[in-house]
């Protein structure tokens, strides 16, 4: 009866003789490895939840978990004496093949991480991405692991690889709380320039969303072909910039009209070859 309970000195697995004690050590290594992987996964998940976006948090947790599992399995197999040379050779070759195949994937992944860390854009930001790509302007919807999605202003979605976004010129329209509106308007040479500037300055002072400081600037900027160009620079909160700009253009025209200040039409004077001058349009 006792003979039945005797533990054998060695066991044959996949045609290889493995000492029972070594096998026991291998099993313990695997169990400890799995426990360590589980604890590391929990800790990583806990840390990443508050510090990284959900996408990255899940990926990082899985990477840590499966990384430790892989190391545990390889250590356990090495400990058991199973010859892994063939496996490593095959793994090395497969690694090179997979590496080449997934080069762009990793490039996008790394760019995504840098986009997250550098924060040139955030979800919800209105942006213009230009330079490397054809111009894409819209609102950032997601910054994923491999791609970023932009809802362009006509309502359609554009998905861009993170590498392209990261290496492009990014204009972020909401990175600052205030922006400057620049409007140029021409008034006729016969008009009272000081009066025109005063009318516009008063209008800016009466527009609530035009900021008192930085002080608005209204000045004669250039002498044009048929008008003196007045530049109107004023700062407004970024969130209402487009509304204020539209409102200001309407109001400037209305106030100039109300004060009988003409915005002239383009004018050309034609001179016919025989010397007779004809006033043209």
């Amino acid at each position: 009866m006792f003979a039945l309970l005797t533990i054998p000195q060695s066991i044959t697995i996949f045609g290889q003789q493995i000492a029972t004690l070594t096998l026991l050590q291998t099993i313990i290594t695997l169990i400890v490895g799995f426990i360590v992987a589980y604890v590391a996964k929990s800790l990583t998940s806990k840390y990443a939840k508050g510090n990284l976006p959900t996408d990255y948090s899940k990926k990082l947790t899985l990477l840590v978990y499966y990384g430790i599992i892989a190391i545990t399995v390889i250590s356990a197999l090495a400990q058991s004496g199973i010859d892994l040379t063939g496996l490593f050779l095959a793994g090395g070759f497969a690694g090179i093949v997979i590496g080449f195949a997934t080069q762009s994937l990793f490039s996008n992944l790394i760019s995504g991480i840098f986009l997250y860390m550098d924060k040139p854009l955030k979800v919800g930001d209105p942006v213009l991405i230009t330079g490397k790509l054809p111009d894409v302007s819209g609102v950032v919807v997601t910054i994923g692991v491999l791609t970023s999605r932009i809802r362009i202003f006509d309502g359609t979605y554009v998905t861009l690889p993170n590498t392209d976004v990261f290496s492009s010129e990014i204009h972020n329209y909401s990175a600052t709380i205030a922006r400057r509106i620049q409007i140029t308007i021409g008034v006729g040479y016969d008009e009272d320039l000081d009066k025109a500037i005063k009318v516009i300055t008063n209008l800016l002072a009466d527009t609530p969303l035009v900021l008192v400081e930085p002080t608005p600037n209204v000045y004669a900027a250039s002498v044009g072909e048929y008008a003196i160009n007045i530049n109107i620079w004023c700062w407004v909160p970024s969130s209402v910039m487009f509304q204020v700009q539209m409102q200001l253009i309407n109001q400037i025209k209305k106030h100039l009209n109300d004060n009988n200040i003409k915005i002239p039409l383009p004018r050309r004077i034609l001179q016919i070859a025989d010397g007779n001058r004809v006033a043209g349009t």
Partner: protein
Amino acid sequence: MLETSNRKGVYGCHSFPFLDTLADNSNSDSSNNKDFTLFNFRDHKISLTPEGESIKSGNHLFRYKRYLNNEVVVDKLLTSSSPSVNVCIFPAVPLYSTPDLSRHLYLKFKSPFVVDPHQKLDFYAKMPIEIGIFKESHKKGILLIDCISLCKQQYILYGTPEHGAICRYKETEVYTAESETAMFEEALIGMHMHNDTDKIIQINMLVIPLNDVMLEHRNDNAYLSGKTEIKVGSSFGKDIANVQLINAKTRDSQLSQTPSKEVTQEFLMDSGF
């Protein structure tokens, strides 16, 4: 009809019985105009109209309207489980008419004041306010349903576009004692300042955080409740003013709402004062 011109004590909660408003409308000269005007605030007129009674639920319906130069600008339906509706009118911090735009008030002093080293100063200034119109539910709290701004609205950028703050702007005198304020347009704010630096400083303006801050009122005069402390100190060779507002009832007056806890707001003026 209740009008600001002939009635004292506009601020507060007012109960409007369903039947009375109906009766008032039935006696009205123009039967087409069913509006029961509550108050006039310059070009703004607010009115309540009984809309009917739900037989199933027993709720009474009222229509709230605000007119600006006789054009309807706000139109809301109010329900009331009792045969009256409670509408409260309170002074409110000037943040509601343009929500999400600003949380701070920038007071520019017409006469800047100079404070000696390690000296203290108590003073008053005026801040802009809005008129908040709230629907009160019997002992269940109040909800803002409309907001009227009678004073000129202006905004300013404090600091840089990257790290600054958009603030509601007001130019004010500095007063050494409580002063009269423009009714429904201004509130009085009392401040206490310490110059903790070793040099003489000049204060030209202050930025006061106003988020979640309530105002007090007494005889239709409004006050910023609590205390506003300004401590000017030096840090890394730069003079910084720390503005702290502890919002709590301080006067023999009424608060628009009873704060559940004392609200403390702080703003660090590191781009000059």
